[in-house]
């Protein structure tokens, strides 16, 4: 699917999406409440059939949090970036996409571990890289660790 068609496809489903053409891919920022429905549609619709989630990560912005999904269709060979915007930094929550792509299970655990974003309906949401009793979320911008981090 061409970039323009992709943009229309997303806008039709989520009218409030902020769509832009990035350096490489079409990017769409959508509210986190609508992300799961959109992503599910992107996977199952034969026009898009994004069956390969090659990157899932979180970003900590000053006012909000984002979960970024990089998607590719192995049959149609097109790509898109969907960003689920969570409007709070206190106890951010969004829906899991484990039921759509199984690779998300590990990736979401990592994002939970390092950003503190809770994924609703995740089958096994625990810390992944850090120990269970770790305090704080290291990849947040306001994380303080006086022992292991050198101040710049």
């Amino acid at each position, binding site marked *: 699917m061409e970039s323009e068609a992709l943009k229309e496809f997303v806008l039709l489903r989520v009218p409030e999406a902020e769509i832009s053409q990035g350096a490489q891919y079409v990017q769409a920022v959508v509210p986190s409440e609508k992300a799961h429905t959109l992503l599910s549609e992107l996977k199952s619709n034969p026009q898009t059939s994004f069956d390969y989630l*090659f990157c899932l990560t979180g970003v900590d912005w000053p006012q909000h949090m984002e979960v970024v999904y990089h998607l590719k269709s192995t049959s149609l060979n097109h790509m898109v970036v969907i960003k689920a915007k969570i409007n709070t930094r206190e106890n951010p929550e969004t829906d899991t996409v484990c039921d759509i792509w*199984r690779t998300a299970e590990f990736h979401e655990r990592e994002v939970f571990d390092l950003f503190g974003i809770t994924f609703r309906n995740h089958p096994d949401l625990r810390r992944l890289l*850090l120990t269970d009793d770790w305090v704080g979320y290291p990849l947040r911008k306001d994380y303080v660790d006086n022992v292991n981090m050198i101040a710049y």
Partner: protein
Amino acid sequence: MDEVIAQALESQEYFINMGPQHPSTHGVLRLVLSLDGEIIRKVEPHIGYIHRSIEKMCEHDSYQQIVHLTDRMDYLSCHINNEAVCLAVEMGLQVEVPERVKVIRTIIGELTRLSSHQLWWGVMGMDLGAITTFLYGFRDREMITDIFEETCGARLTMNYNVPGGLMFDIHPNFQKRTKEFVTHFRKKLPEYDDLLSNNVIFRERTIGIGKLSKEDAISYGVTGPTGRASGFSCDVRKHHPYSAYDKVQFNEILRTEGDCFARYQCRIAEMWESLSIIEQLIDNIPEGPFKAPTKAVIKLPKGEWYQKVETARGEFGVYIISEGQKSPYRLKFRSPGFSNLSALDHMARGAKIADLVAIMSTIDLVIPDIDR
């Protein structure tokens, strides 16, 4: 009475720790196995023993420094990891690197892939009880590390790439020694088949073990030779060519079986392809500068870039979000080992403990790559 006996004989599920210091995990990976007798019911990987939070460190480092950190992830594909960061930064700066750089990067990238596969082959044999392969693999790998040492002074973590090009030009002996290696290894690679591929015990232990279907491979994001053995066409060198891969002829190796032996065959066949890529390029290194001019302090404009490359283990991605500073606002490394490991549970269910060793070997895990 029969019920009592049946109850007494009924096996109970129990747990066992494999690792974090198990020889076959090749690093500090802990697997909690849920077992019914010798049959695996569930594998739960516990990772993070060598998590260094490289992504957080990158948020304070300059782009030149970030290149050095990528060596410490997948140390067997260090050159290719470096290349990924350099390509992403070059894309952000819109710098066109000289043709000479592209060709040299490709040749060294393929040598890196070869040396990684040689080590994998040696260690794989050792995991399954054949110590000879380890010695054979390291014998041939030594020639490649010698070439690297002469080229840039380091044998493993090379740091030969810098944003814009290479740290310095190739050594005058580079072409001669690489050609010597290719001639040598073309003769030695059939030995690998004699030792392992056609070995009855080895085949018994790998054929039909640890199956992964194409749909599952895509869903789990399993890439590299592991994914291609399941029929998932995911070679970044073919789908999104970078450096000089669009100028060379090579085949993407695909198998459909998706078992341990298919993954093994994929890597062996990839070694032949790598040799062919090197042969096509080694006499055609264009003249010219080895580095495009870049500023001492690199500041990427506001924006975001995603660069993927094919390491020896699969698709490695660098995702840079820049706010116009000298360090990235956020940097994510999508490491192939992380996604490949997530499919381990799926592959190992129903197998025996000894099979798990074979499955792990053929996924070719490098733990620092997973933990980052």
